[in-house]
């Protein structure tokens, strides 16, 4: 019954990972030792089951988009100050800058109807930058809760105004939490919702000038859709990799759940 065979070698034998000499020794042993032979047989069957049953998972599209956006942001932010001592991807940086320049032009065109295109373009940049940053590990929420009664009061004392936080869970847009962020030098409230595996950031702050503004698409940046609107003295912007139609639908639901603010 007993034999001196090292069990681990059987696995390596089955995997074809032994040197020819070693493999020959094991093969010979298996012809005489019934127990090892049965074990090698079991090992082989197990490996077959594992290879059939274990397959790669497909990475979610949102992860693909996040990585693409993060790579893009890396290139842009690294461009002016190359700190690398060793080979630096200059060509990639140049390409990144071209893309950045091209997308600013597009956004300028898209926001031409706005009152101050340059200002709005900057806001759009910062909204998207903040959205991308929020997707990095640990940056999404300062207060994580899907209860509006936790999220809304959290902003008290942190901001001089209180954002609206309707619950849209039943409509497929669960509340994920809230965060304090900055657009320009101004602290703004960010309320975060989800849609399947997409993240939607809603930025809001007291508007500089009066007059309501219907939701309008500010175009896309780095693949993110942006919509802005103004109501009741509050300016709101939202960014997400969610498709434009669903993002528009989300804004409608958000506004429907939001009574106009009375001064």
């Amino acid at each position, binding site marked *: 019954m007993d034999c001196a065979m090292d069990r681990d070698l059987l696995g390596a034998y089955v995997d074809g990972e032994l040197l020819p000499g070693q493999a020959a020794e094991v093969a010979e042993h298996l012809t005489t030792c019934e127990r090892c032979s049965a074990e090698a047989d079991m090992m082989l069957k197990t490996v077959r089951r594992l290879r059939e049953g274990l397959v790669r998972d497909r990475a979610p599209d949102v992860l693909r988009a996040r990585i693409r956006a993060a790579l893009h942001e*890396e290139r842009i932010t690294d461009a002016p100050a190359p700190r690398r001592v060793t080979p630096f991807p200059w060509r990639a940086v140049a390409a990144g800058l071209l893309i950045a320049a091209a997308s600013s032009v597009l956004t300028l065109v898209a926001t031409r109807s706005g009152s101050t295109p340059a200002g709005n373009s900057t806001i759009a940049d910062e909204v998207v930058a903040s959205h991308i940053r929020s997707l990095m*590990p640990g940056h999404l929420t300062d207060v994580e809760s899907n209860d509006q009664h936790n999220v809304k009061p959290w902003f008290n004392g942190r901001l001089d105004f209180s954002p609206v936080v309707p619950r849209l869970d039943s409509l497929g847009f669960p509340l994920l939490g809230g965060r304090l962020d900055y657009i320009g030098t101004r602290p703004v409230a960010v309320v975060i919702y989800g849609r399947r595996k997409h993240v939607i950031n809603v930025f809001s702050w007291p508007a500089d000038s009066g007059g309501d503004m219907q939701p309008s698409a500010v175009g896309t940046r780095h693949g993110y859709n942006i919509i802005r609107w103004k109501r009741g003295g509050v300016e709101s912007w939202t960014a997400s990799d969610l498709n434009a139609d669903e993002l528009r639908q989300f804004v409608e639901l958000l506004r429907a759940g939001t009574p106009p603010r009375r001064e």
Partner: protein
Amino acid sequence: MPESTLESFERTVVPLLDAAYTLARHLLRDEHDAQDVVQEAYLRAWRHYAHFRGGDVRPWLLTIVRNCCWSWRRSTRPARDVVEYDDEVHGDHSSDLPADGTALEDSDRAILRTALAQLPPEYREVIVLREIEGLSYKEIAAVTGAPLGTIMSRLARARTRLAQALDVRGREVS
């Protein structure tokens, strides 16, 4: 026109996202953690890509992913492995489609996932690297930083435990 570093990265490293995500998911047993860590690993890979000197890019990337997973586990979730309930295993998998689109019995696959998730992380990683990625022992040793002999015995033990869970039997010994 010669290929830029980014073009080369996008051609060779980005298509390995499924492999990277799969390893992270088995190591962390949480799809959201896996996404965060893989994103971090990709940024790290991009920063080091200029130093990458040829060879097979897959073990190189998986080493980075694996190391990011272990530092994540050490720094943020020391208690995770103690928790028996695991939504990776028990949660809704309706949206999880295998990358190769094969249609093996769902139940068999679920049993296997559950059995694998119950093994220690050192065993999970060698199984993923060997049975899913098909890496050689030498490559697995390089990815995990463990000696060849250790890889050999971890694989053997992990397989024995999975065989028990799957009720695989060898020939009867008379």
